Protein backbone atom coordinates (compact mmCIF):
# COMPACT_ATOMS: atom_id res chain seq x y z
CA UNK A 1 0.00 0.00 0.00
CA UNK A 2 1.42 3.37 -0.95
CA UNK A 3 -0.60 6.11 0.64
CA UNK A 4 1.70 8.87 1.81
CA UNK A 5 1.31 11.23 4.71
CA UNK A 6 1.83 14.04 2.21
CA UNK A 7 -1.37 13.02 0.44
CA UNK A 8 -3.41 13.24 3.65
CA UNK A 9 -1.86 16.57 4.58
CA UNK A 10 -2.88 17.91 1.17
CA UNK A 11 -6.41 16.60 1.60
CA UNK A 12 -6.66 18.11 5.09
CA UNK A 13 -5.40 21.49 3.88
CA UNK A 14 -7.97 21.55 1.11
CA UNK A 15 -10.86 20.44 3.32
CA UNK A 16 -9.83 22.90 6.04
CA UNK A 17 -9.90 25.68 3.46
CA UNK A 18 -13.42 24.61 2.47
CA UNK A 19 -14.53 24.45 6.11
CA UNK A 20 -13.17 27.97 6.64
CA UNK A 21 -15.10 29.16 3.60
CA UNK A 22 -18.25 27.53 4.97
CA UNK A 23 -17.68 29.05 8.42
CA UNK A 24 -17.21 32.48 6.86
CA UNK A 25 -20.59 32.14 5.15
CA UNK A 26 -22.21 30.92 8.37
CA UNK A 27 -20.75 33.93 10.19
CA UNK A 28 -22.55 36.27 7.81
CA UNK A 29 -25.81 34.94 9.25
CA UNK A 30 -24.60 34.21 12.78
CA UNK A 31 -21.55 36.35 13.61
CA UNK A 32 -21.08 34.75 17.04
CA UNK A 33 -21.30 31.16 15.85
CA UNK A 34 -18.45 29.09 17.29
CA UNK A 35 -16.82 26.46 15.13
CA UNK A 36 -13.71 24.37 14.96
CA UNK A 37 -12.08 21.76 12.78
CA UNK A 38 -9.63 18.96 13.32
CA UNK A 39 -8.05 15.97 11.68
CA UNK A 40 -6.73 12.73 13.10
CA UNK A 41 -5.21 9.49 11.89
CA UNK A 42 -5.30 5.94 13.19
CA UNK A 43 -4.54 2.46 11.88
CA UNK A 44 -7.93 2.07 10.20
CA UNK A 45 -8.58 5.73 9.40
CA UNK A 46 -5.56 7.32 7.72
CA UNK A 47 -7.54 10.55 7.77
CA UNK A 48 -10.62 11.56 9.75
CA UNK A 49 -11.71 15.15 9.32
CA UNK A 50 -14.27 16.92 11.48
CA UNK A 51 -15.76 20.40 11.37
CA UNK A 52 -18.04 21.31 14.28
CA UNK A 53 -20.52 24.11 14.69
CA UNK A 54 -21.46 24.36 18.34
CA UNK A 55 -25.08 24.55 19.42
CA UNK A 56 -24.52 25.68 22.96
CA UNK A 57 -28.13 25.27 24.04
CA UNK A 58 -27.88 21.51 23.39
CA UNK A 59 -25.76 18.79 24.96
CA UNK A 60 -25.03 16.52 22.03
CA UNK A 61 -26.52 18.14 18.96
CA UNK A 62 -23.60 20.14 17.64
CA UNK A 63 -23.66 20.10 13.85
CA UNK A 64 -20.64 18.11 12.71
CA UNK A 65 -19.28 17.70 9.21
CA UNK A 66 -17.44 14.41 9.00
CA UNK A 67 -15.19 13.26 6.17
CA UNK A 68 -13.77 9.78 6.67
CA UNK A 69 -11.08 7.85 4.82
CA UNK A 70 -11.28 4.27 6.01
CA UNK A 71 -9.12 1.28 5.21
CA UNK A 72 -11.49 -1.65 4.86
CA UNK A 73 -9.80 -4.84 3.71
CA UNK A 74 -8.19 -4.20 0.33
CA UNK A 75 -10.03 -0.92 -0.22
CA UNK A 76 -9.97 2.70 0.77
CA UNK A 77 -13.54 3.74 1.54
CA UNK A 78 -14.42 7.42 1.65
CA UNK A 79 -17.61 9.01 2.87
CA UNK A 80 -18.90 12.29 4.22
CA UNK A 81 -21.96 13.49 6.06
CA UNK A 82 -23.45 16.25 8.15
CA UNK A 83 -24.77 14.93 11.46
CA UNK A 84 -25.43 15.77 15.07
CA UNK A 85 -22.50 14.71 17.22
CA UNK A 86 -24.68 12.07 18.85
CA UNK A 87 -24.86 10.42 15.43
CA UNK A 88 -28.15 11.39 13.76
CA UNK A 89 -27.33 11.98 10.11
CA UNK A 90 -28.82 15.20 8.72
CA UNK A 91 -27.44 14.79 5.20
CA UNK A 92 -25.63 11.88 3.61
CA UNK A 93 -22.69 12.99 1.53
CA UNK A 94 -20.70 11.41 -1.25
CA UNK A 95 -19.17 7.95 -0.99
CA UNK A 96 -16.38 6.35 -2.97
CA UNK A 97 -14.32 3.17 -2.89
CA UNK A 98 -10.92 2.66 -4.46
CA UNK A 99 -8.68 -0.41 -4.21
CA UNK A 100 -5.56 0.33 -2.19
CA UNK A 101 -3.55 -1.58 -4.76
CA UNK A 102 -4.38 1.11 -7.32
CA UNK A 103 -1.41 2.86 -8.88
CA UNK A 104 -0.53 5.84 -6.57
CA UNK A 105 -1.28 8.63 -9.02
CA UNK A 106 -4.67 7.08 -9.84
CA UNK A 107 -5.46 6.66 -6.15
CA UNK A 108 -4.51 10.27 -5.50
CA UNK A 109 -6.72 11.38 -8.34
CA UNK A 110 -9.65 9.33 -6.95
CA UNK A 111 -9.17 10.87 -3.50
CA UNK A 112 -9.22 14.41 -4.86
CA UNK A 113 -12.24 13.67 -7.06
CA UNK A 114 -14.00 12.61 -3.88
CA UNK A 115 -12.84 15.78 -2.10
CA UNK A 116 -14.27 17.84 -4.94
CA UNK A 117 -17.61 16.09 -4.46
CA UNK A 118 -17.44 16.81 -0.72
CA UNK A 119 -16.93 20.50 -1.50
CA UNK A 120 -20.05 20.48 -3.68
CA UNK A 121 -21.98 18.59 -1.00
CA UNK A 122 -21.09 21.26 1.57
CA UNK A 123 -22.15 24.05 -0.78
CA UNK A 124 -25.44 22.26 -1.35
CA UNK A 125 -26.03 21.91 2.39
CA UNK A 126 -25.20 25.43 3.59
CA UNK A 127 -28.94 26.11 3.91
CA UNK A 128 -29.42 22.99 6.03
CA UNK A 129 -26.53 23.96 8.31
CA UNK A 130 -27.89 27.49 8.71
CA UNK A 131 -31.34 26.14 9.59
CA UNK A 132 -29.84 23.82 12.18
CA UNK A 133 -27.83 26.65 13.73
CA UNK A 134 -30.77 29.01 13.96
CA UNK A 135 -30.99 30.02 17.63
CA UNK A 136 -34.06 28.80 19.46
CA UNK A 137 -36.90 31.31 19.64
CA UNK A 138 -36.71 33.57 22.63
CA UNK A 139 -32.91 34.00 22.60
Amino acid sequence: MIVTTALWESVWERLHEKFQDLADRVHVAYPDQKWGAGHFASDFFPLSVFGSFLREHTEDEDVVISVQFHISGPNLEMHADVAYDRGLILADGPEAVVPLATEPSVLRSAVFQFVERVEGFLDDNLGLILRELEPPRGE
Partner: protein
Amino acid sequence: VPRPTDKDGLSTFDGMERAAEPGEKVQIIDPSRLRVLIAFPDPLDPSHFALRPGDDAELLREWAETKDAQRSEPDRFLHPLTREVFEARVGETKRPR
Protein backbone atom coordinates in the same frame (compact mmCIF):
# COMPACT_ATOMS: atom_id res chain seq x y z
CA VAL B 1 -16.13 11.13 26.06
CA PRO B 2 -18.55 10.04 28.79
CA ARG B 3 -20.82 12.56 30.46
CA PRO B 4 -19.89 13.51 34.03
CA THR B 5 -23.07 11.71 35.06
CA ASP B 6 -21.91 8.45 33.42
CA LYS B 7 -20.44 6.98 36.59
CA ASP B 8 -19.91 3.55 34.98
CA GLY B 9 -18.01 4.90 31.99
CA LEU B 10 -18.66 5.42 28.30
CA SER B 11 -21.72 3.43 27.23
CA THR B 12 -21.34 1.09 24.29
CA PHE B 13 -23.45 -1.74 22.88
CA ASP B 14 -22.62 -4.91 21.02
CA GLY B 15 -25.40 -4.53 18.47
CA MET B 16 -26.54 -1.86 16.02
CA GLU B 17 -30.16 -1.86 17.21
CA ARG B 18 -29.21 -0.88 20.73
CA ALA B 19 -26.43 1.49 19.77
CA ALA B 20 -28.30 3.69 17.34
CA GLU B 21 -31.74 4.93 16.40
CA PRO B 22 -32.75 4.63 12.73
CA GLY B 23 -30.81 7.20 10.74
CA GLU B 24 -27.96 7.43 13.22
CA LYS B 25 -24.40 6.35 12.60
CA VAL B 26 -22.25 4.36 14.95
CA GLN B 27 -18.56 3.98 15.55
CA ILE B 28 -17.29 0.40 15.64
CA ILE B 29 -14.69 -0.18 18.35
CA ASP B 30 -12.45 -3.22 18.67
CA PRO B 31 -12.06 -3.67 22.46
CA SER B 32 -8.86 -5.66 21.94
CA ARG B 33 -7.26 -2.41 20.75
CA LEU B 34 -7.98 -0.64 24.02
CA ARG B 35 -5.04 -0.24 26.40
CA VAL B 36 -6.12 1.47 29.61
CA LEU B 37 -9.86 1.22 29.08
CA ILE B 38 -11.70 -2.02 29.75
CA ALA B 39 -15.14 -2.98 28.41
CA PHE B 40 -17.14 -3.96 31.50
CA PRO B 41 -20.30 -5.97 30.81
CA ASP B 42 -23.46 -4.66 32.42
CA PRO B 43 -24.87 -7.43 34.65
CA LEU B 44 -28.38 -6.08 34.11
CA ASP B 45 -28.12 -5.69 30.34
CA PRO B 46 -26.19 -8.35 28.38
CA SER B 47 -25.66 -6.18 25.28
CA HIS B 48 -24.43 -3.14 27.18
CA PHE B 49 -20.79 -2.46 28.03
CA ALA B 50 -19.20 0.46 29.84
CA LEU B 51 -15.70 1.56 28.88
CA ARG B 52 -13.75 2.75 31.89
CA PRO B 53 -10.18 2.67 33.16
CA GLY B 54 -10.54 -0.29 35.47
CA ASP B 55 -11.46 0.83 38.97
CA ASP B 56 -9.79 4.21 38.62
CA ALA B 57 -12.81 6.43 39.35
CA GLU B 58 -10.63 9.53 39.53
CA LEU B 59 -9.30 8.98 36.02
CA LEU B 60 -12.84 8.37 34.75
CA ARG B 61 -14.02 11.59 36.40
CA GLU B 62 -11.08 13.51 34.94
CA TRP B 63 -11.90 12.15 31.47
CA ALA B 64 -15.60 13.01 31.73
CA GLU B 65 -14.76 16.55 32.77
CA THR B 66 -13.23 17.16 29.33
CA LYS B 67 -16.50 16.45 27.50
CA ASP B 68 -17.69 20.03 27.16
CA ALA B 69 -14.26 21.45 26.37
CA GLN B 70 -13.70 18.74 23.74
CA ARG B 71 -16.75 20.06 21.86
CA SER B 72 -15.05 23.45 21.57
CA GLU B 73 -11.68 22.06 20.60
CA PRO B 74 -12.14 19.40 17.92
CA ASP B 75 -8.60 19.96 16.67
CA ARG B 76 -6.94 17.95 19.43
CA PHE B 77 -7.59 15.24 21.98
CA LEU B 78 -8.01 16.82 25.40
CA HIS B 79 -7.59 13.53 27.24
CA PRO B 80 -5.51 10.42 26.42
CA LEU B 81 -8.56 8.17 26.88
CA THR B 82 -10.36 10.05 24.10
CA ARG B 83 -7.42 9.29 21.84
CA GLU B 84 -7.50 5.66 22.97
CA VAL B 85 -11.14 5.28 21.93
CA PHE B 86 -10.42 6.97 18.63
CA GLU B 87 -7.50 4.63 17.95
CA ALA B 88 -9.65 1.57 18.76
CA ARG B 89 -12.19 2.67 16.14
CA VAL B 90 -12.09 0.16 13.26
CA GLY B 91 -15.14 1.25 11.31
CA GLU B 92 -18.20 3.41 11.05
CA THR B 93 -21.63 2.45 9.80
CA LYS B 94 -25.17 3.72 9.96
CA ARG B 95 -28.49 2.23 10.90
CA PRO B 96 -30.96 2.48 8.02
CA ARG B 97 -33.93 4.77 8.55
